[in-house]
C-alpha cells in the first residue's frame, strides 16, 4: 500500500512540475512571439498549451496523455508543414517576391533618379571627439543651409547660434561640439561620405565630387489612399497585381515585388506557362517511368534469384543469400555517391576497366539523357533487388509443395507450373509491396540527386534535368541555388506529388484490405 501511495504522490508531483515547466515556456515563448508581432503563432502556442493542460488534468482524457509527446511533434513538424505547404503553393514566394508589401514599398521608395538639372550643394564636414560626423550643405540655387542629423537633412537658419564662425572668415568652423574637418580628414572619410546620402522628403543627396553633393529624387511615390505607386518622373501609375506593381499604361513591372497570394496561379502556370509546362511534363513522365522501371527491374532480378535460391538442396545457399543482401544493407546515399564515381566519364571504372578495354568506348554517362537514365536505373537495380529477393523468397516458401506435385501428375511443364501456380500465388502477397515500392521510388530523391543530380539539363529549361524526378525538381526550385528560387511553385509541385502518392497509397490500402482489417480491429 505504502509503495503505491508513494508512486501516486510522486506521479502528481511529476505532473505538476511538467505542466508548470510547459506553461512557463509556452507563456514566455508566446510573449516573445507577440513582441515580434507573430500573433498567429503566439495564439496557436497558447491554445496548444491549454489543450495539454486539459489533457493532463481531466480524467476523461487519460488515454490522450500517452499520445501527447508524439502528437506535439506530429502537429508541429508534419501537420503544420503540410498546411503551410498548401498555403505556400498559393503564393508567389521566391526570388523577387521575398519581401512583404510594406518592405517592398519601402525599397521602391528609396530608388532614386537624377533630375535633368540637379541642384548642387557645397559642403563642409565636421567631427566631434567620438569621431561622429555632421555635414553642413549649402544649396547652389537658393543658398539655403542644411545640416545633417544622422541620415536626415534639416534646414537651418543662416543666423542660428549653433553655427559658429570663430575666425570670421565666412566659413563655419564649429557646430556645437563638432569642429570642421581639414581636407585631408575629409579625404580619409571619403567612403563614409559617399555612402551617406542624407535625405529630406523625396530628395536624397549624393556626393558627386570632393566639394559637392548633388540632388537626387525618389522615383516612386506610394499613394496610400489609392494603393498605387506613382513614378514621379513620368507620372506613370503602377497597380499591385499578384505581388508586383504593374504599370497601368505599359508592360513595365517594378522590382522588387512582394509576397502575395496568387490563388491557383502556380498550378495554372505549371499547365500553361511554356517555360514550365514543357520541362514539368518531361519530369512528370520520367518520374512515372523511373518508378515503374525501378520496380520492374528490381522485382525481375529479385524474383529470378529467389527462384534459383528456393532450393534447399542447393549448396552454398546461405553464403549466396548473405552476399547478395549486402547492397541493401549499405546506406543508399553511400552507394549512390560511390556509383557516381564509377560512372565518371574519364576516370570511372565502368569506362576505364570495362567498356574501354572490351568495346573501346567511353560514353559520357551524364551528358546523354538515355545513358543517364540507364545509369540511375542500374544503380537502383543494384541496391534495390535484394529487398525483392528476400520478399520473394519468403513468399515462395509459403506456397504449399503439394500444389506442384499435383501439377506434375497432371503433366504440367516447369514453365506452366511457374505461370499457373507460382506467379499468381506470389503476387497475392507481393503485389502490395510492389505498389509500396513504386510509391517509395516515386520520391527516391537520394539515388537521382546523388548519382546523376538530375543531369543532363533539358534544353530550354532553367532548372529541370532529364533524369530529374518531381521531388528533385522541387528541391532544385526551392534550394538549388541555380537561377531564381521559386518557393511557391515548389510547394505547388509538392502538392501534386502528394496527390499522386496519396492516391497510390490509398489504392494500395484498399487493395490489401488494410483499412477493412483495421476497422474491425478498431
Amino acid at each position, binding site marked *: 500500500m505504502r509503495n503505491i501511495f508513494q508512486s501516486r504522490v510522486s*506521479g502528481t508531483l511529476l505532473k505538476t512540475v511538467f505542466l508548470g515547466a510547459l506553461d512557463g515556456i509556452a507563456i514566455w515563448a508566446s510573449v516573445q512571439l507577440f513582441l515580434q508581432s507573430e500573433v498567429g503563432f503566439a495564439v496557436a502556442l497558447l491554445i496548444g498549451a491549454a489543450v495539454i493542460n486539459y489533457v493532463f488534468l481531466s480524467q476523461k482524457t487519460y488515454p490522450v496523455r*500517452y499520445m501527447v509527446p508524439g*502528437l506535439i511533434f506530429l502537429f508541429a513538424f508534419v501537420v503544420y508543414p503540410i498546411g503551410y505547404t498548401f498555403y505556400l503553393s498559393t503564393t508567389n514566394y521566391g526570388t523577387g517576391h521575398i519581401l512583404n508589401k510594406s518592405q517592398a514599398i519601402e525599397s521602391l521608395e528609396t530608388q532614386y533618379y537624377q533630375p535633368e538639372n540637379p541642384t548642387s550643394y557645397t559642403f563642409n564636414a565636421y567631427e566631434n571627439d567620438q569621431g561622429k560626423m555632421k555635414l553642413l550643405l549649402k544649396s547652389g540655387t537658393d543658398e539655403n543651409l542644411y545640416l545633417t542629423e544622422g541620415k536626415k537633412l534639416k534646414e537651418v537658419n543662416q543666423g542660428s547660434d549653433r553655427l559658429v564662425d570663430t575666425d570670421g572668415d565666412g566659413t563655419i568652423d564649429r557646430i556645437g561640439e563638432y569642429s570642421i574637418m581639414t581636407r585631408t580628414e575629409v579625404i580619409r572619410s571619403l567612403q563614409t561620405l559617399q555612402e551617406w546620402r542624407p535625405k529630406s522628403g523625396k530628395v536624397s543627396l549624393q556626393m558627386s565630387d570632393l566639394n559637392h553633393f548633388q540632388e537626387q529624387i525618389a522615383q516612386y511615390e506610394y499613394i496610400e489612399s489609392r494603393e498605387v505607386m506613382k513614378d514621379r518622373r513620368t507620372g506613370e501609375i503602377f497597380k499591385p497585381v499578384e505581388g508586383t506593381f504593374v504599370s497601368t499604361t505599359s508592360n513595365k513591372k517594378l522590382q522588387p515585388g512582394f509576397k502575395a497570394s496568387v490563388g491557383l496561379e502556380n498550378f495554372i502556370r505549371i499547365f500553361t506557362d511554356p517555360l514550365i509546362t514543357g520541362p514539368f511534363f518531361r519530369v512528370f513522365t520520367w518520374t512515372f517511368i523511373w518508378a515503374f522501371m525501378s520496380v520492374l527491374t528490381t522485382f525481375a532480378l529479385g524474383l529470378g534469384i529467389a527462384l534459383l535460391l528456393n532450393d534447399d538442396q542447393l549448396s552454398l545457399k546461405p553464403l549466396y543469400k548473405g552476399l547478395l543482401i549486402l547492397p541493401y544493407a549499405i546506406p543508399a546515399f553511400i552507394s549512390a555517391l560511390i556509383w557516381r564515381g564509377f560512372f565518371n566519364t574519364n576516370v*570511372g571504372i565502368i569506362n576505364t576497366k570495362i567498356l574501354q578495354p572490351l568495346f573501346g568506348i567511353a560514353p559520357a554517362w551524364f551528358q546523354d539523357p538515355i545513358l543517364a537514365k540507364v545509369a540511375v536505373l542500374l544503380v537502383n537495380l543494384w541496391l534495390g533487388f535484394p529487398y525483392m529477393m528476400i520478399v520473394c523468397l519468403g513468399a515462395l516458401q509459403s506456397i504449399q509443395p503439394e500444389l506442384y506435385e499435383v501439377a506434375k501428375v497432371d503433366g504440367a511443364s516447369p514453365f506452366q507450373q511457374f505461370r499457373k501456380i507460382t506467379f499468381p500465388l506470389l503476387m497475392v502477397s507481393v503485389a502490395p509491396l510492389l505498389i509500396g515500392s513504386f510509391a517509395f521510388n516515386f520520391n527516391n530523391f537520394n539515388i537521382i540527386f546523388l548519382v546523376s543530380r538530375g543531369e543532363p539539363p533539358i534544353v530550354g529549361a532553367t532548372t529541370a534535368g532529364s533524369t530529374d524526378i518531381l521531388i528533385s525538381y522541387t528541391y532544385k526550385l526551392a534550394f538549388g541555388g541555380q537561377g531564381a528560387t521559386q518557393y511557391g511553385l515548389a510547394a505547388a509541385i509538392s502538392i501534386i506529388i502528394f496527390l499522386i502518392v496519396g492516391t497510390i497509397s490509398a489504392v494500395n490500402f484498399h487493395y490489401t484490405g488494410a483499412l477493412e482489417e483495421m476497422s474491425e480491429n478498431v
Partner: protein
Amino acid sequence: MSNDKSLLGQFWSWFVARGFKHLIMLAILAFVLYPIIWIISASINPVGSLSAQSLIPDNPTLENYRLFFLGGAEQYDAPFLLWLWNSLKLSVLTGVIGTAMCALAAYAFSRFRFTGRRTGLLSLLLVQLFPQMLAMVALYFLLLQIGDLAPWLGLNTHLGLLMVYLGGSLGFHTWLMKGFFDSIPHSLEESAQVDGASHFQAFMRIILPLARPMLAVIFILTMIFVYSDFILASILLQDTSQYTLSVGLKLFIFGSYNQRWGIFAAAALIGALPIVIIFLSLQDQIVAGLTQGSVKG
C-alpha cells in the same frame, strides 16, 4: 571409355539440376560484389586518385583510414569523424525518443477505448501518406522562424533537425507497434492492476519488456532512416561542422572525384559499417518491418 562417358553424363545431369544455378549465381555475385571490391581496393590504395585505380593495389596502406580518423590532410576541410558522430547522434536520439513516443501512443490506441480513437488511428495513417520531405520548403521556413525566437532550436541546429525527424518518425511505426501490443494478452496487465499498479506502471513494467523485439525493430528502422537521410539534413543544416555524414560526404566528393577518391572510399566504408552490421545481424526482423510498410533510406 564407357566409364568416362558416364562421368560426363553424371556431370551433365548435375549441371542441369544444380550446376547452372551456381553459374548464374557467380555471374550475379560478380555484379553485386564488383563495386564493393573496387571501393575496398581504392581505400587501401596509396595513390588516392580515381584514375590510378587498380583492383589489387601495389603497396596497400591504411593511410586513408588514418586520415579519416586523425585528419591532417591539409587540403580538405572535412571533419569526417565529426560528421559520423553527428549522424550517429541524430539517428540514435531519434531512434530512442521516437520509439518511446511510438510505444506510448500505440499503448493508448491498443488498450483504451475512447472517443476519437478510430479517427485518430485513421488520421495517423492519412498523415503518413504525405512523405515529410515533400514539406521541405515549409520545414525550412518553420525552422527559420523558430530560429528567430530561439537560435539553438532553429535552422542549422541538431536539436531543430531532431525535432523534424521525430515528427516524421511517428506515423506508421505506431501502427506496427499497436499491432504488436494487440497480440499481448490483456490478462497480464489486469492481474498487475489488481495488485494495485496504475496503467502507466503496467505499461512500463509489463508491456514494454514483452515488446522488446518490436521496440528494437522500430528503433533500428528509425535509426537507419535518419542515418540515411540526405534531403532534410541538407536543407536544414548549413555549417560544415553541423553536417551529417550524408551531407558532408556529398559536398566533399562532388566535383572532386578524381583527386579525393581514396579517402572518400575509406570514409564511405566506415560510414556504411555501422548500418551494415546492424542490418545483417537483425536482418529477419528488419525485413519483417519493411514488408509491413516501413521504408529504408
